[in-house]
């Protein structure tokens, strides 16, 4: 399996999905070799046991004790799944500055565009592919499963070398991330990956139709496997412990603050809500390239004091924010799946989701809106805050609906697809 996010190295839903799927496959007794790039400046190396950190390949095996049949291979790389080339460039420069600081300005000129690191995102993708292919030569496996565009070239290479069937898993497309303003290079990589694949897995019918209509892939090749949600087994954290008194209602936006997620619709709806009720706070948890613009926009709308920006949250902080929230809103412009609403429901927070999301295909007990219909988003936010039975009913049914979505079922579907490709070959 080729991916580039895995807890704790996550910045979005992709890592969560890879983790859930891998764990479920593991429990089905499937051996998974998970190959992922590891950011060099990670703060989380302590969580990871690096077994073979030497060698030019920097292949390291991570060991997570709960995953018995999974081995990890990592490749040093500053690769970030949701980056734009700009951010990527900045990140490299940042790394360089840090290196300078540490090593007294003596930087290897080969660092940029050299052998260790790619000078830009695209080189990086291909470098990842080359290294993954080398890694693959020393491993035994039956199927190659690549997650999202950055691993497709690697997937193609590994499949070509090994002669094993290739499955590409589309968690999002360039159209979701960038609207109509697509990056042609990424689009080409995506398309090439889908064309070379024996099977394409889409996270929703929404995404499947994008794959068919915009990438020209034959419908027979594209299967839908919905994401699921991880059980919170022993969630002992209670409101009493947090000491928060709920006299103000909290409406939550949780996700990357980017064009795809529709932060401006959230803020416009917030403005409308505040025209009618006062005791509400809007929390935007997450970071992203539109974060500063969103802060400015909130100020411009005159609701700055009612909107809180928390930055990127993870782990316990996510749980806490869900615990405080009365309502979760996901006004995504384009959302291939959207795991976060499932997590919200799993944490007993009712959700408003955009009709333009894959997750709306699997959730019946959620309020659904068109992302552009700010009036209706506000109408529904107010309804949830004003009529408590609405939240009660959404929570009760939504929660039990989410409990029926299990990674085990998603994994079994993947397994079925693996088997199909093996028979076909």
């Amino acid at each position, binding site marked *: 399996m080729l991916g580039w996010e895995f807890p704790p190295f996550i910045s979005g839903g992709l890592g969560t999905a890879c983790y859930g799927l891998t764990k479920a496959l593991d429990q089905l007794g499937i051996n998974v070799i998970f190959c992922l790039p590891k950011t060099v400046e990670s703060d989380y190396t302590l969580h990871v046991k690096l077994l073979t950190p030497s060698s030019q390949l920097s292949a390291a095996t991570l060991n997570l004790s709960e995953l018995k049949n999974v081995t990890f291979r990592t490749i040093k790389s500053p690769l970030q799944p949701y980056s734009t080339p700009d951010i990527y460039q900045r990140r490299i420069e940042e790394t360089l500055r840090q290196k300078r600081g540490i090593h007294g300005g003596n930087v290897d000129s080969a660092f940029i565009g050299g052998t260790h690191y790619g000078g830009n995102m695209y080189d990086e993708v291909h470098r990842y592919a080359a290294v993954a292919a080398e890694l693959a030569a020393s491993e035994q496996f039956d199927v190659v499963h690549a997650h999202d565009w950055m691993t497709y070239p690697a997937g193609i290479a590994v499949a070509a070398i090994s002669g094993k069937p290739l499955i590409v898993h589309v968690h999002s497309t360039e159209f979701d991330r960038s609207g109509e303003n697509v990056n042609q290079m990424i689009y080409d990589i995506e398309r090439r990956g889908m064309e070379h694949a024996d099977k394409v897995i889409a996270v929703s019918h929404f995404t499947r139709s994008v794959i068919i209509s915009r990438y020209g892939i034959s419908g027979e090749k594209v299967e839908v496997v919905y994401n699921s949600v991880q059980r919170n087994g022993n969630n002992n954290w209670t409101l009493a412990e947090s000491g928060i008194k709920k006299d103000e209602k909290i409406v939550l936006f949780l996700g990357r603050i980017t064009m795809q997620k529709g932060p401006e619709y959230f803020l416009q709806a917030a403005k409308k809500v505040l025209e009618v009720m006062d005791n509400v706070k809007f929390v935007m948890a997450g970071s992203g390239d539109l974060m500063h613009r969103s802060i400015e926009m909130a100020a411009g709308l005159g609701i700055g004091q009612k909107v809180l920006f928390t930055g990127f949250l993870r782990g316990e902080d996510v749980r806490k924010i869900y615990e405080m929230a009365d309502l979760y809103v996901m006004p995504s412009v384009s959302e291939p799946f959207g795991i976060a609403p499932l997590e919200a429901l799993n944490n007993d927070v009712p959700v408003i989701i955009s009709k333009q999301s894959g997750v709306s295909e699997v959730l*019946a007990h959620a309020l659904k809106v068109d992302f552009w219909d700010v009036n209706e988003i*506000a109408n529904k936010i107010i*309804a949830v805050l*004003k*009529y*408590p*039975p*609405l939240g009660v*009913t*959404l929570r009760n049914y939504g929660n039990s609906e989410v409990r029926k979505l299990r990674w085990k079922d998603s994994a079994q579907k993947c397994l079925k697809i693996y088997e199909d490709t093996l028979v076909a070959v």
Partner: protein
Amino acid sequence: MASICFYFQVHQPLRLRHYTVFDKNDRYFDDYKNASICRKVADKCYLPANRLLLEMIRRFQGEFKIAYSLTGVLLEQLQLFTPEVISTFDALAETGCVEFLAETYYHSLSYLYSYDEFIEQINKHTETIEHLFGQKPKVFRNTELIYNNELAALIESTGKFDAIMAEGADHILGFRSPNFLYRPKGCNKLKLLLKNYQLSDDIAFRFSNRDWSQWPLTADKFTAWINNISGDVINLFMDYETFGEHQWKDTGIFDFMRHLPEQVLKNPNNDFKTPSEVVQLFQPVDTVDVPHLISWADIERDLSAWLGNAMQSNALHELYRLEKDVKKASDDKIITDWRKLQTSDHFYYMCTKYFADGDVHKYFNPYDSPYDSYINFMNVLGNLHKRCSGGTTGNTSCGLSKNKDSLNLETQTAGYLS
């Protein structure tokens, strides 16, 4: 070998338009949608079915008889949008072979919340029927056949009715047959007509179901079943929209009805009777005790289709909590709007039962989800509340203050959430 007693329920709700919390006007209903649905159902069901039944009545010269319950909200819409349907009902009334039943004018659940309002709506309905069709209804049926002992006692105490109708549910009858007249527990005069749900649902629900072992159902076959039944009366109660709307024309439902009277009357021991004739001819064979509320809906035959979740309970409680304010405002438009909001369909749309599976509850539902329907209803109710207090915004929190009570009540009445 029994008398066949047909009763058809004819009803269309007034659907609300999309109404957000930002709307300020008092136009609550979707005239366009209501008109077009009324038109469609008139063309597919009311007109062809009325024509067919009128033809049957004339052909069998008084041998074929039926009964209708027409709701007030339906009659208002027919008058507005498809007056020709009213005239065909009038033609049916003139044959003398058609009985009209009494119910609440607004097809409401008012019996559960306000006796005063309940009685007022029955009176309004009775007057309307008398005015339109020259008949004073003598048999009462409550909305969705919702029934218990107390209701029967209340209806008897009005002194206006000879009989009441209910679902012939197994759990109230036990080993007894629905094909006789009964006496409601606690009543002395009032008689009880019980729906034979087996035979009624064969026509209303199973008729076009190809997985049903008895498909296709023919008039021959149905008559054979009837001939085998011993009892006084077989009560076939169903929605009138069964003809042409629930069961489409191409299922053969109209042909079935066309041949049924002929087949049934071939056996000299069979006949058709109206509910009032049945009540006059037969005596109750036993007392039926119904302490808990029943209805004719779903498999459960209870109230869970209208009162099965916290939203439904809350919406109903908030609606009837306004009764005093509405009546105090003594503005006819406000009272009428409030009453139109009482139609049971508004609460049926909020039903979450089977929602995720998608079924009959979805089919006649103008909303995408029960949540949307609750939000819409509560927004309208909020506006109505403001109008009661003269348009001031002082009471905007309609829905908040009493919520705890409503929720508690909810778990007691239905136990659906726990």
